């Protein structure tokens, strides 16, 4: 088991290095010259050259990549005296801040959005999936199936606008969003986040409903469920131990990946609701062409996916004995 974990960790480090390299290459090759942007309107070739020199952009690719990599671990200095402490993902000259500190400020918002939405979609997805499976083919099952279809087809931004219009403007069930900290007014804070949570959760809840329903129906047809019934176990035990456990275990995998993906920022939802999270930061950076930020967010997302993948693998190994213990023939 320990060996497996170490092997996975080593593999993960390699993947992350490759991710860094590829991301760096893409931005190195494809992006417009940052020196031109920094230089501004009244620019002369000499000035550009000086900035390039300052930023080390005239050095060979590998040297620059090495500086970038070591910056991640020990920090680095830009030009004359702009400090960027480790882990340094880059420096946004447009907002005069290191990318890392921008992220640290905004991460709590994205985390709140992701956690809240995840709780909602897990609850809704598992419960309605179970209801569908128990009542397979009946009206309620077909009704839920119809809802999931709608949930999967509605684009996020449409749902966000419709919800805002209906709940806030027309029905006035929810107050207008105001910027408050959790400690100052927990109720307002909660209501602020309620709509983003719902909007994000709907699509996931729909697909989790379908997945749960399909898995449970499949598990109920397994021969070991028949064995469990033939042993005279109570239906509640048959369900809990022999249908739900096998049906829900694969969902762990998908959930881990979905959640990790969301931590990197929900671009559309955050933008529509004006939440200052990583997603909003990314979309702002794209409009302003603030490259270090775009690259930083890309790296963060990649990092989260790789780590999420690894965590899911380890968790799965722990909960599925067929993976944990090989056959001993």
């Amino acid at each position, binding site marked *: 088991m320990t060996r497996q974990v170490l092997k996975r960790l080593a593999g993960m480090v390699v993947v992350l290095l490759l991710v860094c390299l590829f991301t760096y290459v893409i931005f190195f090759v494809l992006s417009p010259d940052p020196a031109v942007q920094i230089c501004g309107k009244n620019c002369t070739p000499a000035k550009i050259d000086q900035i390039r020199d300052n930023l080390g952009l005239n050095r060979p690719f590998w040297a620059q990549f090495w500086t970038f990599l070591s910056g991640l671990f020990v920090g680095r200095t830009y030009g004359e005296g702009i400090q960027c402490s480790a882990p340094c993902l880059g420096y946004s000259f447009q907002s005069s801040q290191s990318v890392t500190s921008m992220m640290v400020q905004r991460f709590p918002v994205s985390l709140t959005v992701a956690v809240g939405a995840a709780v909602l979609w897990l609850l809704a997805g598992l419960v309605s999936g179970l209801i569908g499976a128990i009542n397979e083919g009946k009206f309620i099952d077909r009704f839920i199936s119809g809802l999931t279809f709608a949930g999967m087809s509605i684009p996020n931004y449409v749902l966000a606008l419709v919800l805002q219009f209906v709940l806030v403007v027309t029905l006035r069930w929810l107050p207008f969003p105001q910027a408050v900290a959790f400690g100052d007014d927990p109720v307002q804070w909660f209501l602020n986040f309620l709509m983003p949570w719902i909007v994000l959760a709907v699509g996931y809840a729909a697909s989790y409903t379908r997945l749960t329903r399909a898995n449970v129906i499949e598990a109920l047809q397994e021969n070991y469920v028949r064995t469990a019934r033939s*042993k005279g176990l109570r239906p509640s035990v048959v369900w809990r131990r022999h249908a739900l456990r*096998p049906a829900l275990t694969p969902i762990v995998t998908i959930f881990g990946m979905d959640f990790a993906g969301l931590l990197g920022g929900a671009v559309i939802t955050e933008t529509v609701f004006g939440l200052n999270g990583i997603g909003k930061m990314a979309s702002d950076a794209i409009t302003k062409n603030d490259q270090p930020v775009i690259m930083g967010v890309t790296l963060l997302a990649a990092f989260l996916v790789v780590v999420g993948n690894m965590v899911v693998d380890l968790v799965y190994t722990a909960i599925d004995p067929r993976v944990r*213990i090989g056959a001993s023939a």
Partner: protein
Amino acid sequence: MTNSQRDQTLDQPADRPMLSVRDLTVAFPTAKATNEVVHHLSFDLPPGGALGIVGESGSGKSMTSLAIMNLLPPGATRSGSIVFRDTELTALREPAMRTVRGSRIAMIFQDPLSCLNPYYTVGDQIAEAYRAHRHGVSRRQAHRVAIESMERVHIRDAARRVNYYPHQFSGGMRQRVMIAMALSMEPELIIADEPTTALDVTVQAQILGLLTEIRENTGAGLILITHDLAVVSETTDQIIVMRHGDLVESGPVEQIFSEPRADYTRMLLDAVPRIDDAIDDMRTLPSSAAHETPTEGARL
């Protein structure tokens, strides 16, 4: 069921059958028609007897066993009478039937890998059945029963292997685990549905030997359901032959094999490939497939 009740039922005269099935019909009604898979089947199993139910695919032999256990797939209906000891099983409600299932009638299925839950140790799955029927039994006691049951089916090193998961066993060992699970409750009747079909021939011989040994040691009755005539001929003393849900013929094993009355039984016996001699001009079977219907011909 309390112990005193159980003692009474054991005291009944030896000639009263332990299981008596009368006019059993299993059907799958659909909007258009009713598809009957077992028609008016009747048979008796004497106490401690071993009955073989033989038939090809689609004969209704497995449905018969599931009907006895009231474990028919959704949508199936059953009618007729199934009297086990003094209890009319068809009149039992589900909670009462649960006390019979596993505890007094145990069942063993064909494919032991898919019949064991991959997420729990075999000990867990044996103990689970035991604890379901014996109230107030501690985990530790149930665990000990699991080890004892595994020892009774000759699984070596049971104290350690009780903590193995199904995938860590070979096919034959898994079937032993299934049998151990059935045995843990000391059932009065064991129904084995194709218990050796998925196993290698040497393992099959061991498992059949084990079933016979258990019958001799515990006095439990056995219903063995199989497509393999040679298997029933060695293991059971009464046989019923089924085809398309009908009873074709029934009787003592020797009579069925030496003086079969039904043409279908004779045809089946002719079709069994012999290990001891090669019949070069084999059988008088039709060589064309024209008479086969699409439901026949495969146990796939």
